[in-house]
């Protein structure tokens, strides 16, 4: 579904993503783990073209999408939920959702479907997104990405700043989405323990490089790796 081959990207002279390879298949969750500055966010931003790749390739559904314009990549069905819950604060909840499905035209998911998934958003649909709590914003940005009926979903730190109970809910929902919609999910997380609890595979990054790529239960069982990179 989504395959990354030897992908590299630079910020000036700094190599933020260093020959990273990984794969995500439909209906599965791959967690990308690692400390602050390990290159997790840069990896996602390079995949969707927000940072130009300096080497390597990104293959999505059999086609090379490396160095394509961001909006064209998204329009192929690769949704990216950015860090910091990129809701547009000046637009209402409903407008944020509509925006997510516009490029799909008539084939967009009905908003009703998303509101059924997140009833809290329905209660607040006419309010400005700036009025939402952190958890609600996260729901809105995930729901908004689903409006375009994507085939793959890139999530950047969905648990950031949320209470533990909410984190568990969001993680369970990510798992459910992968299963029910047959989505390929690439989940970037600092909260390694909760991410591994729902992921099929885990990829650990350090200084932009892959230091481990294993099934998640093995990764969780590897004490050395956990202590060195995952902090639990």
């Amino acid at each position, binding site marked *: 579904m989504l395959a990354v081959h030897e992908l590299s990207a630079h910020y000036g002279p700094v190599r933020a993503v260093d020959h990273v390879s990984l794969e995500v298949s439909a209906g599965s969750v791959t967690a990308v783990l690692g400390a602050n500055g390990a290159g997790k966010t840069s990896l996602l931003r390079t995949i*969707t073209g*927000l940072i130009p790749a300096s080497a390597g390739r990104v293959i999505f559904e059999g086609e090379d999408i490396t160095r394509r314009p*961001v*909006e064209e990549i*998204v*329009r192929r069905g690769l*949704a*990216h939920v*950015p860090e910091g819950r*990129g*809701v*547009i*604060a*000046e*637009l209402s909840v409903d*407008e944020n959702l*509509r*925006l*997510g499905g*516009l*490029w*799909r035209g008539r084939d967009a998911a009905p908003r009703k479907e998303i509101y059924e998934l997140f009833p809290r958003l329905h209660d607040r649909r006419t309010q400005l997104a*700036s009025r939402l709590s952190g958890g609600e914003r996260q729901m809105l940005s995930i729901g*908004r*990405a689903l409006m*375009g009926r994507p085939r793959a979903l890139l999530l950047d730190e969905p648990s950031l700043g949320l209470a533990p109970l909410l984190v568990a809910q969001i993680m369970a929902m990510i798992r459910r989405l992968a299963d029910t919609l047959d989505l390929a999910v690439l989940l970037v997380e600092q909260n390694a323990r909760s991410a591994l609890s729902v992921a099929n595979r885990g990829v650990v990054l350090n200084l932009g490089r892959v230091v481990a790529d294993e099934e998640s239960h093995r990764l969780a069982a590897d004490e050395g790796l956990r202590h060195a990179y995952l902090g639990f």
Partner: protein
Amino acid sequence: MTKFIDLTLSGISDGAIYAAVALALVLIWRATRIVNFAQGAMLMITTFIAYAVIGAGASYVVGFLAALLSGLALGAVTERVLIRRVEHAPPLNAVIVTLGLYTVLVAVAGMIWGNTPKSFPAAFSLRGYTVGGTTLLFTPNDTFIVLVVIAVALGLAAMFRFTSLGLQMRAAAFAPEVARLLGVRVGRMFTVGWALAAVAGAIAGVLVAPSVFLGPNSFDPILIGGFVAAVLGGLDSPPGAVIGGLLLGLALSYVSGYEGSALVPLAALAILVLVLMIRPSGLFSAAQERRV
């Protein structure tokens, strides 16, 4: 009392023009965070095009449409060819580019149409309404000006609020990166923003031309008024631009009527300085909300 009514009505008419120019500046500011110093020259060119079309024997309506279409094209081409190269550069680059464009357009207009001001036809009579034996300064053409600007403002507001294009334009203006991640073709939205702005400017040009005469530099004072109105309204708020335009039109009309027209440029400047000192974000800016 008649004088007060006269000044109020002509203030509303002038204010409508400032509002239209301010709308043009605000549309561009919202889309690309650039103050378009070439706005006055762009609307001068489109008004000259209307002048040429009418001069060739076409009707006023056809001339008006020619101004709108040429504004649409001029705005879009300017964004694609010139502005796109400086959108991500330091702000000063864009300032220099728009000033350069201003100079080029003024020179080109002078070469084609000469520098002597020309008279431009009005849509309706320029003779004031007569009420109870008194003739007012307010004319049927002023009514036309006010109605057209109201229609433009309401049309733009409805477009932003109710259409998918408007939603995408707002998203592209508020959060370009997030918009791109939602499949919005942000570059195209910027082009549309510039094109619509140039159309609003073109409308202002055709409306005001009968009273200022048409020459390469005729619209400079209008641009200054439009700029003050835009700042008054907060620079990123279309309703603010309209209200700012009307307030400025009224204020300058009273200054002109009671204190003398020589003071008008000074008064405009004083209002600009006062707004920037007391409320730099303008009367209607969303700037505070954005920091959430």
